């Protein structure tokens, strides 16, 4: 029926079409000119031919050149200045822009399916642009966001390039432990969703290095990004329905600008090191601990394995193992070549980049290398009816590393451990007594990741008010990784040979996604009313294949890369999975007098991740804004340049549970018995779970003062996630650790976000702007039906954060036993789980950033401080009984309790004492192991010098020095306060030198 209706419209459409074809017959002329501000020429002003997408920017002298039809209007836009429209009459045009008014409010914000002007938006969206991203010498775009956006908290999992990140947008929404798809937002690159979820993109063999978490955005060159928008509240995310619960990250790549064909060369070299080592015990302190350990245990005849005491080792050696093992300088080189240009109708941008990132480990592989190509092509038909853009981003990233992080051995090795090498240059095993930390470096990890993102958007204007659009694309992400383990990594005393002990493993994970999204956009304006509507549909299909095989035993290590030559070949895992998703979405936006705005969005989603009765779900949101500065009462307040009150309420969801979880199946086991393959039950059967829902409420005030020199926003939000879809923990007696089901608990994430942007100075020669953001999140479990009877009784408390740890209450050291004392709540003289009564929140009180941008003549200086107020696990959380040979400890452990040092914080050393070991076991789980982990970090510093050399044809030469993670102020007891896993390499301090040449 509907189809017929549409066909009958054709006649009507055709009529409009004919009417609109005769508009083009003007003379095209070349216009040159200059744009001045109050105090001289303005650089970087956008000059746009109105009604087109043809534009240029002013060069270093404020000059521009553009071809435009006579009579057309040129629009001059520059941030912080009033835009101006000028008709093209003559071929020379001098424009003077006036400072401020409106300014930031005119920026267009991309919300995915549609875009809005900053002033008119009803949702909560944070944005950063290329200008800020380019300041950071980083590999992954997420690193460039850290500290720059309110409500967004990003944790880098490892300092090794090519690893993963945890991202939380407005707190933890889910009981799922982070990293297993817990809080991963939806990433969208130029309209294409890139899945970073449980089932796809997992590398198979990187568990030791990256815990198998590898960020999918490693395949995107940060310098190819024009802007990143993060959608936070219901109004902005509900149109993404089931996938928007954890927020949406929209990445827009750089598009070409019409005009001259521009070449850009960017080259930089970076030097990265571990910013700060932990203070560990030196040889003297270590030996003192060992002597004390044996004398405490009354041992005078040292056992065979006390190599330092019985003379097998020289106990007076000293090596700074941190310096030796993770103290290197990782050198990174980046080079990129870009070409962009085009004309009124067709624009292009091509950027090719090559980057290499070394490691801080000794004699390791090449590190992370990425080659990427971005091609953007935008075409507009002469009649302005067709609008086509094509984006292709392809990158090949390789990582060549030792298979394990050396940070743990660097911290643990005793300071008097033997030398790494024998005088003859061979690895030193000290007669088989020393597990040489460099030996595992022989076991290598390498990976090759190919990410292809290919997208097309075709738009067609049926009527001036109506257009249809088709967004379609494919993404392919394949990871191939390999672990090579030659027999030489083993202690030679084991007498292992390559025939059996050389092992080669290879894993492949191919994941493909295909999406098609037809849409209809309507835009109507009559008098004071303006109506925008959008109806669209999505069909998405993902498939992924996992395959891994292993070869054991090679006649020589020379063959180890070829599994086909192994004595035994084993196929470990063959697994395919499929995910399909279909949806219908809608947006209605109504504005009255551009003052009162109502925005309604909704989505109906279907996902293959649910059983037959639960495949579909509905989501929606209502947002509204009132621009009160437009009201008459505000017009008199000359200090108020802009004021808006906005709010939104709605629901979003999550289907991030992994595929097939509702099926009752058996899975093939590749571990053969008697040559027969096995079948085992895949999971506990539960077909009844359905979508989890997050209800989001937000109120915000945005205002600008003194001709937009001060721009501020204050937002309050409250997100409530219920019907949580998680793997509910079960006791091991049930046969499985968990079952996938909806969970009767509600988590609330509530908080305040404040942003402030001030233009402090804007003079001819110098300017100074400041950006500040702070977020105060609060996480709380507000309801949990049946908590007392559930398996979570000892994990969560209603009214407290879900980042909760139940701990023993630390009281000090017991003088009579010399052991730690903890509160014995049940008074039975035994400390056990019944006494784990103190619940400690690992909480984030606030986090934020302060950025200052200064420029003086040709110089520009930008620096960003990131600050976080939080508590986290400290080193006591991994503390073991001091006194053994295998582990060195922080220098603080020198402060051991003894009758002469009653204030000591650690127990006396013992060579073997189960009582002391147990006591440390309780300490690790006590409230002493959680403490302040707040820090202030000079996250980024960038100093640049820009000049133009017109005679050489050089439009812009930018020389810069950039630094990342330069300085950290913290009282944290551990290697780095930013992240949680103490055995991982911390984020590195980087200094980068580079230049950018545009001609």
């Amino acid at each position, binding site marked *: 029926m509907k189809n017929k209706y549409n066909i009958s419209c054709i006649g009507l459409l055709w009529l409009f079409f004919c009417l609109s074809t005769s508009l083009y017959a003007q003379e095209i002329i070349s216009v040159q000119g200059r744009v001045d501000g109050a105090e001289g020429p303005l650089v970087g002003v956008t000059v746009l031919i109105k009604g087109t997408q043809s534009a240029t920017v002013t060069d270093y002298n404020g000059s521009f050149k553009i071809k435009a039809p006579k009579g057309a209007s040129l629009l001059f836009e520059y941030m912080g200045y009033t835009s101006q429209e000028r008709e093209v009459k003559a071929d020379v045009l001098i424009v003077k822009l006036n400072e401020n008014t409106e300014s930031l409010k005119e920026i267009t914000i991309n919300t995915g399916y549609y875009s809005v002007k900053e002033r008119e938006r009803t949702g909560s969206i944070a944005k950063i642009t290329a200008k800020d991203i380019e300041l950071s010498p980083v590999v992954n775009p997420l690193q460039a966001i850290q500290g720059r956006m309110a409500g967004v908290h990003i944790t880098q999992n490892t300092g090794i390039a090519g690893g993963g990140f945890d991202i939380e947008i407005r707190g933890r929404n889910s009981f799922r432990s982070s990293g297993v798809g817990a809080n991963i937002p939806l990433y969208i690159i130029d309209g294409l969703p890139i899945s970073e979820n449980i089932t796809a993109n997992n590398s198979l063999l990187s568990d030791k290095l990256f815990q198998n978490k590898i960020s999918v955005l490693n395949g995107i060159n940060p310098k190819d990004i024009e802007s990143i928008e993060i959608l936070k509240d219901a109004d902005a995310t509900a149109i993404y329905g089931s996938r928007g619960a954890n927020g949406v990250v929209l990445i827009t790549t750089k598009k070409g600008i019409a005009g001259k064909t521009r070449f850009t060369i960017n080259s930089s070299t970076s030097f990265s090191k571990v910013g700060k080592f932990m203070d560990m015990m030196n040889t003297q302190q270590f030996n003192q601990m060992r002597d004390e350990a044996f004398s405490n245990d009354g041992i005078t005849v040292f056992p065979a394995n006390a190599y330092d005491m019985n003379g097998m080792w020289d106990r007076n050696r000293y090596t700074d193992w941190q310096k030796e093992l993770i103290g290197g300088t990782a050198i990174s080189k980046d080079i990129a070549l870009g070409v962009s240009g085009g004309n009124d109708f067709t624009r292009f941008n091509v950027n090719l980049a090559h980057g290499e990132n070394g490691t801080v480990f000794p004699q390791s592989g090449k590190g992370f290398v990425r080659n990427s190509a971005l091609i953007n092509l935008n075409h507009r038909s002469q009649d302005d009816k067709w609008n086509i853009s094509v984006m292709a981003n392809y990158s090949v990233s390789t990582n060549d590393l030792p298979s394990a992080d050396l940070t743990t051995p660097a911290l643990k090795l005793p300071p008097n451990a033997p030398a790494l090498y024998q005088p003859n240059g061979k690895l030193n095993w000290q007669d088989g007594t020393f597990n040489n930390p460099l030996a595992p470096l022989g076991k290598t990890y390498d990976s090759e990741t190919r990410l292809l993102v290919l997208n097309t958007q075709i738009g067609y204007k049926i009527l001036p008010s109506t257009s249809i659009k088709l967004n379609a694309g494919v993404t392919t992400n394949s990871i191939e990784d390999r672990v090579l383990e030659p027999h030489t990594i083993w202690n030679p005393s084991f007498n292992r040979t390559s025939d*059996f002990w050389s092992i080669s493993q290879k894993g492949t994970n191919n994941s493909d996604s295909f999406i098609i999204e037809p849409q209809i956009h309507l835009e109507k304006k009559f008098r004071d009313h303006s109506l925008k509507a959008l109806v669209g549909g999505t069909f998405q299909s993902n498939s992924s294949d996992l395959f891994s095989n292993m070869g054991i035993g090679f006649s020589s290590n020379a063959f180890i890369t070829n599994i086909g030559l192994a004595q*035994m070949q084993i196929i470990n895992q063959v697994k395919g999975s499929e995910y399909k998703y279909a949806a219908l979405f809608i947006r209605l936006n109504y504005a009255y007098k551009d003052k009162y705005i109502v925005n309604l969005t909704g989505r109906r989603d279907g996902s293959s991740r649910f059983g037959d009765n639960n495949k579909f779900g509905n989501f929606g949101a209502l947002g509204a804004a009132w621009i009160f500065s437009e009201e008459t009462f505000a017009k008199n307040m000359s200090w108020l340049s802009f004021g808006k009150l906005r709010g939104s309420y709605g629901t979003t969801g999550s289907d991030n549970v992994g595929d097939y979880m509702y099926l009752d199946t058996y899975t093939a086991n590749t571990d053969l018995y*008697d040559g027969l393959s*096995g079948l085992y039950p895949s999971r506990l059967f539960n077909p009844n779970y359905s979508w989890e829902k997050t209800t989001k409420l937000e109120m915000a005030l945005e205002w600008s003062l003194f001709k937009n020199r001060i721009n501020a926003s204050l937002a309050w939000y409250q997100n409530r996630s219920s019907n949580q879809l998680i793997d509910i923990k079960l006791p091991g007696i049930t046969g499985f650790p968990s079952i996938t089901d909806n969970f009767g608990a509600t988590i609330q994430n509530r908080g305040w976000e404040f942003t402030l942007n001030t233009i402090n100075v804007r003079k001819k020669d110098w300017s100074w702007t400041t950006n500040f953001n702070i977020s105060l999140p609060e996480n709380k479990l507000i309801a949990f039906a049946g908590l007392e009877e559930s398996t979570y009784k000892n994990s969560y408390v209603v009214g407290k954060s879900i980042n909760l740890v139940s701990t023993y209450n630390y009281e000090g050291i017991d003088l009579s036993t010399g052991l730690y004392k903890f509160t014995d709540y049940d008074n039975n003289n035994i400390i056990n789980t019944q006494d784990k009564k103190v619940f400690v929140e690992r909480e984030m009180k606030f986090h934020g950033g302060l950025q200052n941008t200064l420029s003086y003549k040709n110089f520009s200086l930008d620096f960003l401080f990131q600050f976080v107020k939080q508590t986290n696990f400290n080193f006591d959380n991994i503390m073991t009984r001091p006194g053994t040979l295998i582990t060195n400890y922080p220098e603080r452990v020198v402060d051991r309790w003894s009758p002469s040092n009653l204030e000591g914080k650690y127990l006396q050393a013992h060579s073997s004492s189960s009582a002391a070991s147990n006591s440390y*076991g309780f300490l690790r789980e006590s409230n002493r192991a959680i403490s302040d982990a707040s820090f202030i970090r000079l996250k980024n510093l960038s100093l640049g010098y820009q000049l133009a050399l017109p005679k050489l044809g050089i439009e812009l030469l930018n020389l810069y020095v950039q630094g990342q993670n330069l300085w950290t102020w913290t009282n944290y007891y551990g290697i780095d306060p930013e992240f949680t896993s103490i055995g991982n390499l911390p984020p590195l301090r980087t200094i980068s030198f580079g230049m950018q040449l545009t001609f």
Partner: protein
Amino acid sequence: MNNLYAPIKKGVGLLILSLFLIACEDMVEIELPDNQLNTPAVFSDKHTINAALSNIYSNFRGAFLFDGMGDGNLSKYTDELESFLQEDFFYANSLTASEPIVSQLWNLSYSDIYHINAFIEGLEASNALEERDKKALLGEAYFLRGLYYHYLTQLFGDIPYVTTTDYKANSRIGKKTYLEVLDLVEKDLKTALESMDNAYRHPDRIYPNKAVVELVLAKNYLLQKRFDLVEQYAQNIIDNPLYVLETDLNKVFKKSAFSTLWQRSPYDIYQTESNTPESAIYNFTTLPPTRIALSNTQMQAFEPNDLRLQQWTKEVTNGVDSYWHVYKYQGLFNAPIEYSIVFRLEEAYFIKAEALAYQEKVSDAVNVLNEIRTRRGLMGLPTTLNKADFITELLAEYQREFFTEGGHRFLDLKRNNRLQDLELIKPNWETKHALLPIPESELLLNENLKPQNYGY
């Protein structure tokens, strides 16, 4: 005109496509992944039923419950092995309830039991096999379930006896007492006994037969102190013509030994060099040892002319120091001629002797034990021994015969109330070490598992 019309057609085409897409609800249907099979389908075919059982055997092979908790751990826990690792909870007797190996042992065992229960439920409801075959396979499953609990209850004491796959009930399930568990094990083993054959399914004896069930049943009666039944079932095995005591000690741990009741089909990866995991764990060639060696106590337990000392241990010396390693599995063969043995005939003699002694028939017991002793190059014991001395001799004999086999020594000492002997040898030994702690994580998840075992 055509040119102008064309784009509109395209536009309408897009519109139609969009409407078409939205209409299709079956666009979110997906197919089963390649490596999964629907549960009803598994139990409707002979081959897939066998595959489900095969998985249970591969679980069994990997289960360190039957292997002295893996890596010689239970042997280090007692006095058979000396550890050279820098921090060793078993060797130092400092295991706590939160140590991951404890929860691994617990969780993996119950996961394996789930697989068995799911197999029993699936097969009971299936008509795909002939009644006889169905009963035989079910018998094996019941036997394996009994076997898991037989070991679990010796290590953990009171435990839940899970026999269904209902996670709702099982997640709240309470414990059965040690004696109740033994009764339930007896019931499962009896069910198995009824339906299993004396003939082996496979010539390599890699699946249990009726005699294996009888042995475990006898071992279980030993725990229940029903010594007459122990005697009866042990005798059945001794009389069974399938089994002969090997006179050449070098043959006992070979795949083709006639003394073997049940052995594990080898892992693919162990077939080429070390044959069995045991030889990879215990053997070393240079000094000082980096992991484990036989302890002084164990070495002193041997008399110099004991053939087991000569054949089943091996000295490694550098001229100054000497250490011995277990040499039951030699692991030097390029073809798989050694299989990891679960039960062997000798045990039937030992438990028969033990049962006789507890029935006050000490002289008969001595005669049974002497059958083993004489084959090991030792003099027979005098039949005049009193019961207490005999038990001491028996335990020493167990130690010499079964060292580092499936945590034998710990279980033997425990069954005979002699764990306190270890206090003289192990500085950290306490009464509480008779049981392992219930994993702390489990106690937190299921209140009904409380109380924690004494002392933890």
